[in-house]
């Protein structure tokens, strides 16, 4: 049984259908990546998983249980944490307060201090900026904060929507290495990326999304070697 399973879901915005009957599964401990062009439906998929959008059909199961009808704020409690596209930093809260928001849904408070230590160890930059307001951080720092905040909640699966978007190369490298590091410590990750090369080379498995449909799937190395993927997403003719 997979940890997270998307079974034949369709999602609409009003009359416009953004997802057509897609299925994805994520096993415990994996990094699964979802690649696709602009407007393919990657964010729609992630927001549906987090409970911010309603399904028109199909279902989402988590740990074997159907959570399709569970409101978003309760999915966090189950252990599903989305770092949204654009990062979703609370601009008028300090770095510390943003991290604290990550623990909002936690019942078990005894591990919170330990979580701060762990996040500051992964992102020493955040420690330096602890009292600064979130809105004044650079894009890269905001992305670190967004990931750190998600980790504060000790999720079972981490959903990352384009964490490398708009970042300078050295930040992109750092973000990807953090993702691998967190995964090595046992975190399951579903990663949406346009930076297909980086994402596929770190992924256990991957899916290609085109205009709301899954058109290809396989292991990371398989898709890296796939000529069609190479041409469309890896910039190799």
């Amino acid at each position, binding site marked *: 049984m997979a940890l997270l399973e998307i079974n034949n879901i369709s999602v609409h915005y009003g009359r416009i259908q953004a997802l057509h009957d897609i299925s994805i599964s994520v096993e415990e401990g994996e990094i699964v990546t979802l690649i696709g062009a602009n407007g393919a439906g990657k964010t729609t998929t992630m927001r549906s998983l*987090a409970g911010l959008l309603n399904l028109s059909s199909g279902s989402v199961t988590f740990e074997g249980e159907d959570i399709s009808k569970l409101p978003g704020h309760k999915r*966090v409690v189950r252990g599903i944490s989305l770092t949204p596209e654009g990062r979703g*930093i609370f601009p008028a*809260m300090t770095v510390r307060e943003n991290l604290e928001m990550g623990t909002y849904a936690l019942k078990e408070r005894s591990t919170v201090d330990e979580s701060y230590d762990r996040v500051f160890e992964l992102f020493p930059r955040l420690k330096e900026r602890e009292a600064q307001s979130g809105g004044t951080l650079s894009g890269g720092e905001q992305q670190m904060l967004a990931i750190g905040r998600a980790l504060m909640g000790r999720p079972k699966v981490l959903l990352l929507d384009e964490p490398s978007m708009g970042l300078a190369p050295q930040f992109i490298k750092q973000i990807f290495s953090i993702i691998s590091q967190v995964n090595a410590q046992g975190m399951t990750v579903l990663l949406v990326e346009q930076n297909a090369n980086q994402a596929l080379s770190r992924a256990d498995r991957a899916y290609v999304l085109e205009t709301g449909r899954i058109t290809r799937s396989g292991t990371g190395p398989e898709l890296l070697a796939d000529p069609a993927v190479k041409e469309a997403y890896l910039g190799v003719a």
Partner: protein
Amino acid sequence: MDQWISFDWEALGANFWSATVDGLTFGGIYALVALGYTLVYGVLNLINFAHSEVFIVGAYAVVFTLTSLGFGPSVPNLAWYAIAANLLLALVFGMLASAVTAFIVERVAYKPLRAKGAPRLVFLISAIGMSFVIQYLIFWWRGPNPEPAVIMFQNKPVFDIGGTLIYFDSILIVSAAIIMMVVVDQFIRRSKLGRGIRAVAQDPDTATLMGVNRERIIVSTFILGGLLAGVAALFYVMKVPSGVLYLGGFLLGVKAFTAAVLGGIGNVRGALLGGLLLGLIGNYGQILLGSAQWNDVVCFVVLIAVLMVRPEGILGSNLGKVRA
């Protein structure tokens, strides 16, 4: 030649300190009501026009409670602690009545629209409609006249600043308003509900991703605003014993709303600053221009002037609306 408008600087000079104290007293009441506008605006981006009625329902509850406890148009003949206990009871009922009204307003006028994802203009119309419905329900029940006056205690001067006597009610109201502001400010900053309110104000979707139940935050915010309006209601009846009528909420609500905008809507500290300033400005203007009718005019002229120069209000809207 007789001018239709003239400035009586002498009167203002002679009454400056008493006008200041009185202005601050009314300002404290505006500030408490202004908080309700500001908090709801923070989480919903919506001016809850029915908040003025939330306030006046509380004032009715205060008057009814005190009347049934034997209070009336003459000073009660009771020991101070008996009076204090009765006022506390009236305060509790005022807060409850306002909070319940706020809850109902949210349920009836806004929640169904939210579920449907209605456009913002529809919320505004619903808000104004709700305000009229409550006003005319009160009118239908109590008629056009104010409730008979309720005097709470013999108001006595407590001290004297350079010939100006400072009365007990002013000290009570101004200090209570300031204390309430500090409490609310700290509550918003430190409590879990407060963090939820700020998160929803700054980014509702991300708040959901943190596990914040947005619907619950919205309802709680309305109730919090209602509780504060209930406190304002007690002080309003204290200050204006015969001011409880169906239109009373509207008249005070417009001032409180102005105060919220003046200080920076969405900003808790701005509500206090805006309220106190507006109380002062209105009172100075009224004495300078010679009659109480000028109070409102002066307030709105100042509001328009401030908004032209600084539309975000004096302190800016900072409950979270400032986006990076």
